[in-house]
């Protein structure tokens, strides 16, 4: 039985259990529902839970564990000289075996016999049926494939039997427990509560998953490249190894990438902070409600536009515009029409990213500015200060910690931003203070190391995880610090 069919039959059994248990409860109540402890539906749900939950758990476990058990036993049956081969070759061999196993059911009995005695070329035959093989199959592989097919079939049969039996048994148990004084609702609610707990633990699991997955892959990277070379190296030159090669010749210096990330982030903040802050101040302190209700959503649209759109905008509009502008300016000043701003540059990426960040700065600071108590504002105005003086001397100092927190959060966004820099910042890993030249960032390199053909054994791909964990740590620290500041500040006025 296929997995979806099993799931379907489980569902049918569950529904049947529900219907039977609730009608049984109805019958027991004798037409007076107060005779029952719970409403009939709860008895139904109780039976359905018993029918489906244990069987689903067994099904999930079986599906996830049985392939590796079968694989171990098939591999154990390989000839000794095959077992002596390196792990990578063995994996390839097993891949061949499972490919053959996928192809075998598509062949007729004679064809299978022909393949077994070698009279038919298996690679050509299977290729015909749409199952390409990586190389010529050896007899032990065909043997293994047959073995694999047989064992998988047996495992599936046993699994179907066990799961369905469990479901029926569970349904029967649930049905038998139906009794007027049975506390079905409490039982069902306990299961629901556990469901809720499991759901909320997914957040924790995600974090653990992020940290563990990146740590383990990064650890493999650091086993090949010393950590000091990575964190303090000033040259980024990974030298893509050819397929199958595991040369560790490349240099993986983090410093140029980090410099590019921080530089572009800095330019972006130079654009976003003044614009966002002034926009927030104007909207909080000066704007009429009408203007506010118009301008605020408009600025927030900027936050809703996907970053890939900004990247494209930078690539086809802002970059060429800056390049041509610099060409004209240079021509007017020196007579030499040479552009001094590259189309892909720190400046291009920084400006466009800055525009993207404006709504983050403005809406976060807007909240913080409006949270400053009215009394402070009135006091200052009453003493004769103008509005701008009130803002500069009273409101901003009072809101400063909150604004700093908001800016830190924005900065963490700038550091983690990917698509704009991928399209607009360039790929050259250099350390430069000229913002008109291209530089690259951590995120760009993560993308470029992990797109294309992957091999999880070379430092060229594993370095992406080391970069990733660096990025994760930086943004996490910025965020935790920002949250801490914001929380502390909020308490001040509450």
């Amino acid at each position: 039985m296929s997995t979806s069919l099993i799931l379907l039959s489980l569902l049918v059994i569950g529904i049947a259990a529900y219907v039977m248990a609730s009608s049984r409860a109805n019958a027991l109540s004798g037409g007076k529902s107060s005779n029952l402890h719970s409403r009939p539906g709860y008895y139904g749900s109780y039976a359905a839970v018993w029918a489906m939950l244990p069987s689903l758990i067994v099904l999930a476990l079986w599906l996830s564990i049985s392939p590796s058990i079968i694989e171990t036993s098939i591999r154990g049956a390989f000839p000794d000289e095959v077992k002596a081969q390196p792990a990578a070759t063995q994996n390839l061999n097993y891949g061949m075996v499972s490919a053959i196993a996928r192809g075998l059911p598509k062949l007729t009995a004679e064809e299978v016999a022909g393949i077994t005695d070698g009279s038919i070329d298996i690679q050509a035959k299977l290729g015909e049926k749409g199952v390409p093989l990586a190389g010529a199959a050896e007899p032990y592989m065909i043997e293994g494939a047959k073995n694999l097919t047989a064992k998988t079939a047996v495992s599936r049969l046993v699994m179907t039997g066990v799961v369905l039996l469990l479901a029926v048994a569970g349904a029967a148990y649930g049905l038998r427990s139906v009794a007027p004084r049975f506390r079905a609702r409490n039982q069902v609610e306990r299961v629901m509560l556990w469901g809720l707990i499991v759901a909320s633990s997914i957040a924790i699991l995600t974090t653990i998953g992020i940290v563990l997955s990146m740590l383990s892959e990064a650890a493999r990277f650091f086993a090949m490249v010393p950590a000091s070379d990575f964190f303090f190296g000033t040259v980024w030159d990974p030298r893509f190894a050819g397929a199958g090669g595991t040369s560790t010749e490349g240099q993986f210096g983090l410093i140029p990438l980090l410099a590019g990330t921080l530089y572009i982030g800095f330019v972006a903040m130079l654009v976003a902070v003044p614009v966002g802050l002034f926009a927030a101040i104007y909207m909080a302190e000066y704007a009429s409600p009408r203007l506010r209700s118009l301008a605020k959503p408009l600025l927030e649209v900027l936050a809703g536009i996907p970053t890939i759109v900004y990247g494209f905008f930078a690539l086809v509009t802002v970059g060429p515009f800056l390049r041509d502008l610099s060409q004209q300016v240079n021509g007017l000043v020196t007579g030499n029409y040479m552009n001094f701003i590259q189309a892909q540059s720190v400046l291009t990426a920084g400006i466009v990213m800055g525009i993207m960040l404006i709504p983050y700065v403005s809406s976060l600071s807007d909240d913080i500015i409006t949270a400053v108590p009215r009394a402070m504002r009135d006091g200052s105005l009453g003493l004769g200060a103008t509005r701008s003086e009130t803002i500069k001397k009273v409101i901003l100092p009072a809101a400063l910690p909150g604004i700093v927190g908001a800016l830190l959060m924005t900065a963490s966004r700038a550091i983690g931003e990917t698509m704009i820099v991928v399209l607009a910042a360039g790929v050259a890993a250099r350390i430069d203070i000229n913002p008109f030249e291209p530089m690259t960032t951590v995120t760009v390199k993560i993308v470029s190391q992990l797109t294309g053909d992957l091999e999880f054994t070379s430092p060229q791909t594993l370095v992406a995880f080391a970069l990733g964990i660096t990025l994760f740590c930086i943004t996490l620290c910025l965020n935790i610090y920002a949250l801490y500041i914001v929380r502390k500040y909020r308490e001040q006025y509450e």
Partner: protein
Amino acid sequence: MTNIVSPVAGAVSPAAAPRRDIGIKRRYAAERRFRAYGIAAITFGVVFLILLLSTVIRNGYTAFQQTAITIPVEISEKLIDPDNKRATDPSVLIAANYPAVVRDAIVKQLGIDPSKRTEVREAAAMISKGAPIQLRNLVVANPALIGTTVNVTFLADANIDSANKGQIDLNVPEANRKVSDTQIGWMNQLKSAGAIEKQFNTGLFTSGNSSRPEAAGLGVALVGSLYLMLIVLALSLPIGVAASIYLEEFAPKNKLTDLIEVNINNLAAVPSIVYGLLGLSVFINFAGFPRSASLVGGLVLTLMTLPTIIIATRAALRAVPPSIRSAALGLGASKMQMVFHHVLPLAMPGILTGTIIGLAHALGETAPLLLIGMVAFVADIPGTPLEPSTALPVQIYMWANEAERAFVERTSGAIIVLLLFLILMNLGAILLRRRFERRW
């Protein structure tokens, strides 16, 4: 201290009446300047928004039209099946020389001397290179066409398409543009014959990816994005709501729930590319899911959207007044019944609004999908979420990297499609909020 004392002294002597100078002019000027900065800042943001949108629309609206050339094609037996073997060996029809058929048709239509080889080549280049395949499918589906002359509508080559839309500057020297003067002349000749026309570009929405701009479409990307959205919705809404209900209504206040809280706030701020790394190493490397599949993309985007949905849902649950809870409990409902029968339905509009906004965010997300291999060149529309696929923003990224002018048009067109979906989703969220939001 003196500057406080002196005005008092001035006020005492009635003769010296000049108003005390508190720099009011200067201060008002500063005030006006400050105001102007604020207006300038808002204008800057809005102007850039308009600039961005207008650039995209200006570049992209033409992508919804496509130039097509309709010409009579003589499907001659001589070219396709010279030995008359198609009855016994159907593969003849597949391997036949269709490019020659197409070439002959356009040459005949334009009245070019077939012996002038450069002219013939230029004329053939006006029709998309996908035309022979289109013709082949036509003939294979209906072999009776052989020996007849049929009117076939071919896509024009991308350069002719651009020229027809007036996007090629004809003042540029001929050598520097991709369309020659002869081709322009032929194009006008075809136009006056009514053989060339602009039609609605259905291919943009149905075709898969292609290296030829005129044949490239968003079909795969749209289906991929649809799968992604369905998976994200099916997983993140129930899990997010369940998690928020637990944290908001049931969780005891202890270290663990505090940790979960801080955790969720931090997860919302983790760069999206980190989720891509997580997906790559956990779902693909560890769990062995296929690369490039929208299932993995959906799982990654689910993890990414969950914090947003949880935060929105908790706010919505918190907005339901305690009196509702007390009333339900007072009438004898259990805590679970109180939540599921009373609090949750009242919080639903807020939850759905948050979910739609989270989904819109996920729809525009590119970086994590690049890492799990959804950036593959996929020409066939995926039938299940396990098959290789791309997504709308990824398709935009891939086209943005292509150099040809015609791809800029396609990219902008794709962006317009993406933005339209986002606008629709956000409008839905706003309407939902307007319609159902209750102030207690």
